[in-house]
């Protein structure tokens, strides 16, 4: 698999207490474990099985991902931002690897 690189998109500005739309995209094959290679062998499952987003330590979303989700999972959700702070995004891979990204966010 190529370098796994998460990408985050947050709105440019928001007032304290606003609900903002958070978009995330991560490149990952999300191999379901159902496919077979040309030799007929099953390609083993390897997916991102969990995605979390925290803001200033509080959990915003904790999602369990299943094999039905296709490659390069795109997650879009709403987050309430009561004050300025830092978003921490975490993706958990089946093979134990953990990918993280952080992004500071300022309220006006």
């Amino acid at each position, binding site marked *: 698999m190529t370098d796994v*690189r998460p*990408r985050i998109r947050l709105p440019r500005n928001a007032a304290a207490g606003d609900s903002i739309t958070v978009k995330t995209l991560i490149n990952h094959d999300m191999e379901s474990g159902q496919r077979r290679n040309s030799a007929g062998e099953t390609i083993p499952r390897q997916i991102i099985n969990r995605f979390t987003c925290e803001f200033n330590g509080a959990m915003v979303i904790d999602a369990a991902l299943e094999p039905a989700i296709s*490659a390069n999972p795109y997650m879009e959700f709403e987050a309430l931002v009561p004050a300025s702070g830092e978003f921490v995004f975490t993706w958990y891979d089946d093979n134990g690897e953990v990918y993280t990204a952080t992004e500071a966010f300022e309220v006006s």
Partner: protein
Amino acid sequence: MQHLKTAKALALASACAAALWTGAAVADPDLTAELVIDGELHLVTRAPSDDVVTPNLPERYSGWLFRTADTRALQMDDFANPAMLAVEQGADLWSTADGTAGQSCQDCHGDAEESMAGVRAHMPHVNANGVLWSMEDYVNNCRTERMGAEAWRWSGEQMVAMTSYIAMQSRGMPVDVQIDGAAAPYWEQGREMYYTRYGELELSCANCHEESYGRMIRADHLSQGQINGFPTYRLKNAGMVSIHNRFRGCIRDTRAETFAEGSDEFRALELYVASRGNGLSVEGVTVRP
């Protein structure tokens, strides 16, 4: 009694015809849709036809117009567009040294935004020796002759990432491939292929993409088969697809022994098919089903 029966039959026949007509209309492209990237960049998805290249098309339509609203929306957001991952990878490769000369693309070509602007819009292109080359040929020629690096596979991950990155530098520019002069014999060869029936199913490109665009072939919604949007992220593959890769797929779908990626035949076909889209915007990297 006889008179009433006939009237009923006629009513039934016209009702059936109406249902068929409505069915066909549902599958037609959405010609009112506007392709605007990130609310800023307007791309041309409808271009005038001409008498030389596409005398049988009333207008040239981008494949984007034939897609569902969800698929169209994916391409209009550079963040959500999964093809952008390949573009990023291409940008990395551009500035990474490779080969015995220890050079990267950037070392000679500098900033791709400047040096590669317009390149995609004119591909494929006859080189200085009079041979028609696709973009992949130019890339591999640099790699093997100047960088001392190995050639990339035509539709391998790195080549597709690089052609994606280069295509993005022409996004918004009109497709404008040369079909006369040194390109003429290749263009003629491509045109002949386009109208040749291949395979057990004896289908030519034109049967689907000129005579039947807007209609369904099984579960697929036929477009005009334009390539202004390649390389594309095909949702079916969950990955990038190159032009020759798609040509192979199409001909294989006619149950024929298909030509190889990087073959002379596909280069000629690529030139002809590109010319059928002259005037449409290069869409950079796109999203297709």
